[in-house]
């Protein structure tokens, strides 16, 4: 459907931002970082459910790994305390390492899956870990027709 973008650069230059969808946090398991896997209706026409769910689930797994409380994190905590936290000047925490992995994953997902569909995921860390922001782009060339059709479908659905 809609527009074909071949890479992120093209997306940025030739498309205009139409809308943003926000995937909120899921607090059912406490304060650990987890995002809701519910599929937002605005994306129904843009991307398959399975791809979306896989992205969110993978992100959730990454965050769970970062916040996991186990042997390694205890070791890191005790070592840090013993060195009066000076050790963090030399090495980065496990959380930061996982955040880098997440950034890389999101970049990869954007390039391979989301940009070709006119979507862009913003890393949650840039939104204070509150939401996963997915920007929906419309191609300027066909903005009239495509957005027109989406509004029609939107209103009929209601």
């Amino acid at each position: 459907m809609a527009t074909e973008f071949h890479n992120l650069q093209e997306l940025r230059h030739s498309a205009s931002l139409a809308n943003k969808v926000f995937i909120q946090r899921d607090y059912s398991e406490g304060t650990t970082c987890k995002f809701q896997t519910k599929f937002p209706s605005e994306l129904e026409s843009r991307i398959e459910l399975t791809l979306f769910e896989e992205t969110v689930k993978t992100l959730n797994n990454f965050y769970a790994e970062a916040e996991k409380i186990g042997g390694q994190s205890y070791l890191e905590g005790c070592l840090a305390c013993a060195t009066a936290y000076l050790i963090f000047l030399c090495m980065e925490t496990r959380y930061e390492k996982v955040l880098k992995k997440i950034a890389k994953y999101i970049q990869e997902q954007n390039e391979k899956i989301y940009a070709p569909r006119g979507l862009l995921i913003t890393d949650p860390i840039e939104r204070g870990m509150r939401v996963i922001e997915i920007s929906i782009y419309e191609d300027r060339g066909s903005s009239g027709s495509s957005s027109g059709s989406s509004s029609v479908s939107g209103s009929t659905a209601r």
Partner: protein
Amino acid sequence: MHLGESMRECEYSQISTRSSTPMETPYKKRTPKRKKWETFPGRNKFYCDGRIMMAKQTGVFYLTLVLILVTCGLFFTFDCPFLAQQLTPIIPVLGGALFLFVLGTLLRTSFSDPGVLPRATPDEAADLERQIDYVANGTKGYRPPPRTKEVVINGQTVKLKYCFTCKIFRPPRASHCSLCDNCVERFDHHCPWVGNCVGRRNYRFFYMFILSLSFLTIFIFAFVITHIILSSYQKGFLTALKESPASVLEVVVCFFSVWSIVGLSGFHTYLISSNQTTNEDIKGSWSSKRGKDNYNPYSSGNIFTNCCVALCGPLPPSLIDRRGFIEADAPQMAPPTNGITMYGATQSQQSHMAATTPLLQQHSSEPVIITSSPENGTSLPARASLTLGGPCSSLPLGQPTPPTSTPSLSCHEATDMLPIHGHALNHTHPLQEQAALHHYLTPEEVPSPPGMLHCGSPLGHSHTVQTSFYNPASQDSLHEDSVRGLVKLSSV
């Protein structure tokens, strides 16, 4: 007359050379890139180019520092030589290590980010408002929009409150610190003695600080007394006191500190072992007095596990990126990256908006997140006490987004909105004044229902506080895109 004219001419030419549309590159080159801490909306102070973050009032922190430094200084100068000779040199070494640890943890607690949650970007805030509207629209007649969400965490129902200042639903255990004007994750309390809030990211340092300070205080107290006693065997009590008057001062300071600091350490040890925050304990959130089934959903049940989690768990990174640069494209605290709506707002020409709104509405209600005309008067009463007033109320009709993140919403009394709004009105950030070009439709255009007298304040609130941090320098690359986008739409 001529002079005046020529002066006016000069002035005019000065102004014309200075003024530049944001799209001109010289303007961009002239302004250096600013860091995010410079436009931070909370009431914090930053030092060392954003590396150090403290609360606004730091007087008591300096008092703490002076007390510790002076007492320890006196101890090392006057008591340690005697003790090292008479007893063992390990005493000053141990004392020195304790002192350094206390100082280190104090500085770490005071200077680090306690876990501040960045405020919602305007898009997020708009999205939340829409979702709240959607639920409110379903109810008949006037009903104040719900401002709480309920979540079930480990079998316990927890209410998440909406923060009017930060425009987010606070995560569980987060709280808004009125002194620092920030929402802080796992908010414990605001400690004036350390000059900062104590939250998720610095709680362990705070605990280490008070624990080590208790040991240090007891250590100094004990050894100063030992010193006096040993000297008085040799020289007599009064002579001993006269020879080291500093010891008297130390004893007095330590005596009074011991009670409070040791007490505080004990209290926080209890809190850590039961995985509660000071905030929760004071409110009695998980007390069994509230109900038979009331229990703490965050506690693992095991004291040891709770302690390990609090003290040795992973340290989350700071969410506010103080030292990052404010960039035009990157999504951050400055205005968002939408092309169409932002441009419509920066122009701030209502005629312009009027021209585009019918066109925008044709296409999709989504882009019109903010700028649609308030055609739907019926939903307004329900939205009267919201900051946005009318405009967004028309949107849910075009875009039936079920509130994906709101499993159940409960109603709030309209009356509690008022004091909050009044409170929020006072927190206008200087940069927000520049956002006269905010991208919500001006309240005057919104036909507010006659009975809603308190509409004035929330709508006024949206004017001043709302749009955040208009940074002209960041608009440049946005502008081109947005101009193209808007031109395209208007030509259709």
